[in-house]
């Protein structure tokens, strides 16, 4: 187990590389969902305004 985390002495490079990539993966999930939620909210607001106008 110790050897696994030590990565043959390359731990300081291997783990940050994996951390950055996985962070980008999870941030992309978060950003994509947030972008969709915002567009839906905006569309809802537009529809409401149209409803009031007519």
């Amino acid at each position, binding site marked *: 187990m110790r050897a*696994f985390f030590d*990565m*043959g*002495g*390359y731990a300081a*490079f*291997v783990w*940050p*590389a*994996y951390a*950055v*990539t*996985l962070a*980008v*993966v999870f*941030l*992309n*999930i978060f*950003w*994509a*969902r947030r*972008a*969709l939620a*915002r*567009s*839906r909210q*905006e*569309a*809802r607001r*537009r*529809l409401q305004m*149209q409803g009031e106008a007519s």
Partner: protein
Amino acid sequence: MDWTWFHKLASPPHVYALAVRLTPWFAWPAALCIAAGLWGGLVLAPPDYQQGDGFRILYVHAPSAWMSLMVYVTMASAAAVGLIWRMKVAHAVAASCAPIGASFTFAALVTGALWGQPMWGTYWEWDPRLTSELVLLFLYLGYMGLRAGIEDPQRADRASAVLAVVGVVNVPIIHYSVTWWNSLHQAPSVMRLAKPEMPPAMLVPLLLMLLGFTLFFVALLLTRLRGEVLSRERAASWIREVIRT
């Protein structure tokens, strides 16, 4: 040839519904492939005879670099379709690609730097491969900045599409930079016509990661595309139905 499928792709409600239905079919296989690829790359693959365990950065670096290029080609192709056929959905696809591509280009640059330090003795060098990849990041950021800077969505679509299409010249430069010039970066060992030079225990996790990231990209693209399509449609009755659910 029957072109109905193509015409259907120009219809926003059809695309929206299709994106809703398809997303899980890409997202879950992507999660499985990436999980298996990580396990294979970190645990099962043997250490490299020259780079020891340091080579394991390959399993996050190569898929990120692959994404940076593949997403750009997708974005430029969609932009070209949008310009040629004046197809709103195609512009929506291109706009959805940019933030995904930019973030993975960033990941490719950072993981590359973290690999460069122990193997080449430097985080950064103004080397053809590294420089052209940095230019790719600026292309993505320029594309996003241009879109954000133009108020009228149709003009933003067209102007940014021109930038995306012109910028595609950088893609072959990145890919062939290691063969055209004397680069610090190693030559391709998987993406080549001859047989790959890796043993299966090293190669299979890499292929799983590449496949997983590609599927993940499609799932992200479909999610973002729904938002882009919604924001481009004004006063269409189908919107009323999709935002209620």
